[in-house]
């Protein structure tokens, strides 16, 4: 199945800029379906970016983050050609991970 994670990392002189778009319903648990029943909460709980064995960005998410979240951040360091690993785990225990080369 296709990955839920799109990620692009671009190294500038001393920092690396990272953008990512993740496909995930991020259901808050407060929305009702057409029959009036609540759609259960289903959201990413932890999102992690790892570079060179260390975590450069960790997000602890809850129900306030919208569907198909987009994240943009920068970290110090990072060389062109190195790997950047992205992974998430949601409240149902599902996970996904992607590794991309820094451009």
């Amino acid at each position, binding site marked *: 199945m*296709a990955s839920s994670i*799109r990620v*692009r990392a671009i190294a500038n002189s001393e920092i690396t800029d990272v*953008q*990512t*778009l993740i*496909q995930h319903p991020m259901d808050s648990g407060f929305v009702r379906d057409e029959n009036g029943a609540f759609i259960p909460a289903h959201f990413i709980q932890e999102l992690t970016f790892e570079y060179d064995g260390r975590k450069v960005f960790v997000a602890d998410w809850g129900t306030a983050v*919208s*569907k*198909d979240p*987009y994240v*943009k951040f920068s970290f110090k360091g990072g060389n062109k050609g190195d790997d950047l690993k992205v992974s998430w785990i949601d409240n149902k225990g599902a996970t996904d991970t992607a590794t991309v080369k820094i451009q």
Partner: protein
Amino acid sequence: MRSRSRLVLAVLAALALSAMQPSSAADRPNPAADAKAFRNYFTNKFPNVRFEDFVNGPYALNEDMRRQWEEKEQFPPYEFSLETGKEMFARRFKNGKTYADCFPNQGIGIRQNYPYFDEKEGKVITLELALNRCREINGETLISYTGEDMAALTAYMAFTSRGKPFDIKIPDDPRALQAYQNGKRYFYTRRGQLNFSCATCHVQNPGERMRAEVLAPALGILNALPIYRSEWGSMGTVSRRFTTCNSQIRGVPLEPQAEEYRDLEYYLSYVSNGLPISGPGARP
């Protein structure tokens, strides 16, 4: 629109009109003149906006929103829908045919020609209508005009036409002129308990705020469709936008692809001739 085709259209319109019953000057539609006045109204109102930029709606009129949008366009929210649309478009029907078999040029790079006036049937055909007809002819069930599948398909078709200018034709046929005129009338007619017309927001108040939204100008307003609207958290078609606009002003929406909506799309697309297709788009 190039001046020569404008002239041709004006001549054709004059010929068509002379063949009609005599009526007051105010009733004779002159689409070419309308389009020119329409364009001038917006370029005069927003002299600092580059002409092609009108297709970007609120982003052409609000710097802060534009900056955020340009950043997001590197990883646009419509990307998933676009990919789905590409796959759907290529998938064979049960009878072995594909959507490509229903459209000129295999359906690639043709979105800017829709809607068109079908002289055999005497009605306006939109892209969404054409897609469902393609399904019907090939023994498939129809899909919802306001749903995500139709949005994905039209997203892909719009994408293949990115940059191509709207090229809507009004043939030398009084029924086509009537459809155009009906669409124009719909656009300016007040409706719903809130008593708004499309023009109330998109002609009288583009760039102003309606609650937290910045209103788009009517010029080029269909060029970015279908759109991923953050408000919806999903992708939406022209049909979805028309019907939800109606209910937002407390008017009961007509059925998707109703004659009024198809004529409205015809009018709005025609007066945006020359502006590039920018879809699929993203809006707040």
